[in-house]
């Protein structure tokens, strides 16, 4: 446990000593603001909710989360520090989990910094703060799922750009599986059972519940199993490199 904490600390310090973290935070906050108030027509809706805020998260994270996670393993491989790290008395799983948690904490910080949106709706009206809390929780798990996928693609290559593109493509698949235009297309020739199965793989389907204020164990299990599976795959990929 102490080893994991040591590794998390190092990763977080690495984030905040480089300008990348601040650039990311600023871009994230600007984009959430733009999507919520302008593209999401927050004021025209005339309701005290953050629906226009959370609704964009699957798309926003599609680009931003891979940008945060792409360096996690690719950079270690490129600079050769992976050899240093894995010859320390550290188990591979500890390194994988620590790196994932550190980036997830960073994304959590970014998400927490959107608190002015919560203040705004509370000033303007009387929103259901339970729904907002559920939305934040869902959004955090959504980011975690994307991040775990990015960790996996990052372990595949020493090139961060390749890791970025691969994870965007994979995450896009997880969005599109439940995206209305796609499901509509599927219903034309597939049976409803097939459409439902495909849609069940989508992060959008599972994120919807949180947005409505429902914290369903099935949705949590869905996100946690994506995280678990992707991190397990990361371990397999790293073991593969070392075996040559």
């Amino acid at each position, binding site marked *: 446990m*102490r*080893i994991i904490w*040591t*590794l998390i600390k*190092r990763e977080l*310090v*690495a984030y905040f*000593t*480089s300008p990348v973290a601040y650039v990311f935070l600023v871009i994230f906050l600007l984009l959430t603001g733009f999507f919520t108030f302008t593209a999401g027509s927050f004021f025209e809706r005339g309701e005290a909710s953050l629906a226009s805020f959370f609704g964009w998260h699957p798309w926003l994270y599609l680009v931003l989360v891979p940008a945060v996670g792409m360096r996690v393993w690719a950079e270690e491989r490129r*600079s*050769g*520090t992976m*050899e*240093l790290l*894995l*010859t*320390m*008395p*550290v*188990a591979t799983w500890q390194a994988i989990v620590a790196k994932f948690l550190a980036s997830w904490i960073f994304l959590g910080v970014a998400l927490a910094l959107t608190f002015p949106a919560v203040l705004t709706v509370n000033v303007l009206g009387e929103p259901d703060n339970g729904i907002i809390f559920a939305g934040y929780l869902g959004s955090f798990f959504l980011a975690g799922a994307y991040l775990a996928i990015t960790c996996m693609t990052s372990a595949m290559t020493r090139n961060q750009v390749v890791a970025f593109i691969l994870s965007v493509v994979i995450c896009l698949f997880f969005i599109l599986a439940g995206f209305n235009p796609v499901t509509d297309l599927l219903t034309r020739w597939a049976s409803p059972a097939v459409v439902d199965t495909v849609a069940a793989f989508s992060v959008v389907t599972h994120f919807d519940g949180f947005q409505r204020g429902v914290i369903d164990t099935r949705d949590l299990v869905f996100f946690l199993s994506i995280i678990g599976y992707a991190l397990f795959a990361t371990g397999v990929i790293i073991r593969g490199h*070392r*075996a*040559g």
Partner: protein
Amino acid sequence: MIQIENLMKSFGPKRAVDGISFAVERGEVLGFLGPNGAGKSTTMRMITGFMPPTAGKVTVGGYDVAESPIEAKRLIGYLPENAASYPDMTVAGFLKFAAELRGLAGQARKKAVQRVIELCFLDSVLHQSIDTLSKGYKHRTCLAQALIHDPQVLIMDEPTDGLDPNQKHEVRNLIRELGANKAIVFSTHILEEVDAACTRAIIIDRGKIVANGTPAALRSMSELAGAVTLQARGATEERLAALGRVEKLNGAFRIYPRDKSQAAQLAQEVVDLVNLHGWKVEGMYSERGELDEVFRRITLPDTVKK
């Protein structure tokens, strides 16, 4: 401390390490020599548990590296090739991080960090980030990391690569000092380092051990070992030829002994001949043999065949 039995590593169809066995005890400094691509780094990566071997076994301090990697890694300090470290960290931060991963905390950690800072002369760059350091300092920072827990086993992949002659000298002295109570393996392709720091040397070529012995023993495998070089006015090739094969160098003669038994008294025979003819001696050396030549003779033919 280190036991290696029939170690093998294949990358696809290519066999990088092909059945290597050796042992290193406490108090030994083993120089690991070989041309580029001979399998030095791969062997070291298997000893340190970074790569699992295709076949064979590595035991460090009684722990099988494949079965109890964490226990084995605790005993090892490792300086990887190119001395990789995290460029965004400061030297102090990096050493603190390494100490924490080694399970050191509180006073013990502070002491350990302070000790390696002094040992590796890092005082002046302590709060600089690693990517702003010169190569020599980067190298020493990574070396400090390897020494932080005062390991019983020290594995170093080209510890003097990229250092200037003064730094090389320092690192060699450090290796020799540390070697008194540790088991050390280091790879190099600078042969003078073997003389300067090793108690034993192994030469590997294309994944196989081709020579294993003390530096002196390796050197005596040289054709040159025991030869006498004479620079003297009046000396002639014909007269010297009575003693052995003579090679003409730039104004001097090199006499090779006919066989190893003659080598011991060859110098005396040359002196006798000089006295007999009244030659004026300007210089005379007894050759100890050159590791260079041994290295080339053992490893070159294979490379050429390829």
